[in-house]
């Protein structure tokens, strides 16, 4: 076949370019534009340069919520990844039981975020919520609206309930893809259960785990609705995460310039950490 060079073919890329431009580039540039201005109202915008960035980087409220955010995402990954792998390992391999477990696991994933928040808000209440009432009658002084530790515990528990099934389902699919011969060989080689996990299952789960870690990190790092509905960020600001701080700043205080600068930094952090995770996992076992 003879290839005919024809640069007009580039026009074929135009629809995609336009789509990406309108869905990502234009809004992003708007944010970039806002981030270098102080906006008081329509027609009342003043160029301020990098002032917002400097301020955002030294703003204590933001830094506190950034720390909380790291703590939360860290906890989410530390709990949900091992727990998800554990659940996947214990799930039945086939038959009716497997289908049943899969359906049960998938249920939390189908519930909308704010409904999840509402469910746990009621569930955790000491007076009418089964969970809160049960804890209280067992003698625990549990009150998620008043106590920081209880609030964190409830937010984490809610997220674990909502999203661990995703990790479990991903790992389950990864485990099912391992050929039976590997288990047979391990049995012949007299490998312990731990060795089977460490040398057969875990290496073969790597790809799904990359996806699971990235999804759970990004999702948890951007969490908004569920804690907002459950605790409203309280008590005090103990469960106020980055998204909520940002929303308060942009919509509550109509501080568009500062919120825009903050959004950009927020975006870069998510991007950077996702990249770090990805690079770390994919390069972990490259040959020296």
């Amino acid at each position, binding site marked *: 076949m003879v290839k005919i060079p024809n640069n007009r073919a580039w026009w074929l890329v135009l629809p995609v370019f336009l789509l990406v431009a309108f869905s990502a580039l234009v809004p992003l540039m708007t944010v970039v534009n806002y981030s270098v201005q102080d906006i008081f109202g329509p027609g009342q915008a003043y160029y301020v340069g990098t002032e917002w960035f400097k301020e955002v980087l030294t703003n204590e409220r933001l830094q506190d919520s950034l720390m909380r955010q790291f703590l939360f995402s860290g906890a989410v990954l530390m709990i949900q990844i091992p727990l998800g792998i554990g659940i996947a390992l214990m799930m039945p391999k086939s038959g009716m039981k497997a289908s049943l477990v899969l359906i049960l696991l998938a249920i939390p994933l189908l519930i909308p975020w704010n409904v999840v928040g509402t469910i746990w808000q009621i569930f955790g209440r000491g007076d009418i919520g089964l969970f809160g009432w049960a804890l209280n009658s067992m003698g625990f002084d549990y009150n998620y609206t008043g106590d920081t530790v209880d609030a964190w515990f409830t937010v984490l528990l809610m997220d674990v309930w909502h999203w661990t099934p995703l990790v479990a389902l991903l790992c389950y699919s990864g485990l099912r893809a391992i050929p039976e*011969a*590997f288990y*047979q*060989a391990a*049995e*012949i*080689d*007299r*490998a*312990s259960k731990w*060795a089977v996990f460490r*040398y*057969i299952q*875990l*290496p073969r789960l790597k790809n799904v785990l990359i996806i699971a870690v990235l999804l759970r990190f990004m999702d948890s790092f951007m969490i908004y609705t569920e804690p907002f509905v459950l605790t409203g960020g309280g008590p005090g600001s103990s469960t106020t995460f980055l998204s909520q701080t940002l929303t308060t700043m942009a919509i509550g205080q109509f501080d568009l310039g500062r919120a825009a600068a903050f959004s950009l930094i927020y975006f870069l952090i998510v991007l950077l950490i996702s990249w770090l995770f990805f690079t770390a996992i994919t390069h972990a*076992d490259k*040959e020296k």
Partner: protein
Amino acid sequence: MAEIQLKSLAHSYSATPTGAEDYAIRQLDHVWEKGGAYALLGPSGCGKSTMLNIISGLLAPSEGDVLFDGRRVNELSPRERNIAQVFQFPVIYDSMTVFDNLAFPLKNNKVPTSQIKARVHEIAEVLEIGDKLYKKAKNLTADEKQKVSMGRGLVREDVSAILFDEPLTVIDPQLKWKLRRKLKQIHEKFDITMVYVTHDQLEASTFADKIAVMYGGQIVQFGTPTELFERPNHTFVGFFIGSPGMNLIPVERRPEGVMFNGVFVPLEAWQNNLLQRVKSDNLKIGIRPEFIEISESPSDDSLEASVLDVEDLGTYKIVTVEVGGQKLKVRQSEDFHSDVGASVHLLFPKQWLMLYVDEFLIKEQQ
């Protein structure tokens, strides 16, 4: 090392077998002696791999017993039976180096580190992968992976037996031959009971001292390659071993011999005697292409046949002849010449003429 005995063993993959066709292995008794090199030969689906998995313990037989040195091991796992098995397709631990792969079974057995090192190097030398010991196993070629896979089977010194399930399927022919020799050498050196499953007769006879031929879930013959060739115990063995396989002709009983389509074939006296005593009418005679003699002039007992085809295979010729409506293959030397359609005279030497009743060989009784 152990003697492996199978006692009235049968296996069905169906939970409620209703008939013989539901069984992958039908009622068999067999002994694999200590330190022997055996091949288990048979076509695809004859139950070879099933039998191997039952010996290793990956599969529990539905009926009968597996005995290691007289001890019943039915309920024991492969781990407890201390058995090594190499699979058809390479199974490697791809996050480990070649060294760690080979050392894995030893580490699991708590062998001291110094011994592990020595043993792994020894096996790697034999398999010629010594220079790749510190490479990641997943970067190896398919051949090398299978060598690693085999190495893991060979590395333990104290195993009851090593089982090979068509281990050379993925290896290219040149290397196949070499590896087979290697296995043979390893067997001679370490004197471990080895059972080698294959559907390739050449592979079986180069590796094994004795071959068990499986057909329809049963071992139809267990013997040396020569025995299988000269005295096939079952028509299937005759047909399966040899290239081309044995000529088998359905025949009818006659005094002093047998007859097919008006062609009379005389038999030995003892064969005739035995033939009078059996009831079955499922009779066949069999003779290897190598043993049929062709001459141009008739003699006593010779049969007239016409030549249908002559194939020159380079070092010998395969002649297809027709006798009484039956096509027979005859192996002749390179200097045999005949025109298609020519009439020739066949001679069946009596010591090579086998008689089969219900597919099984009628043997002379001592």
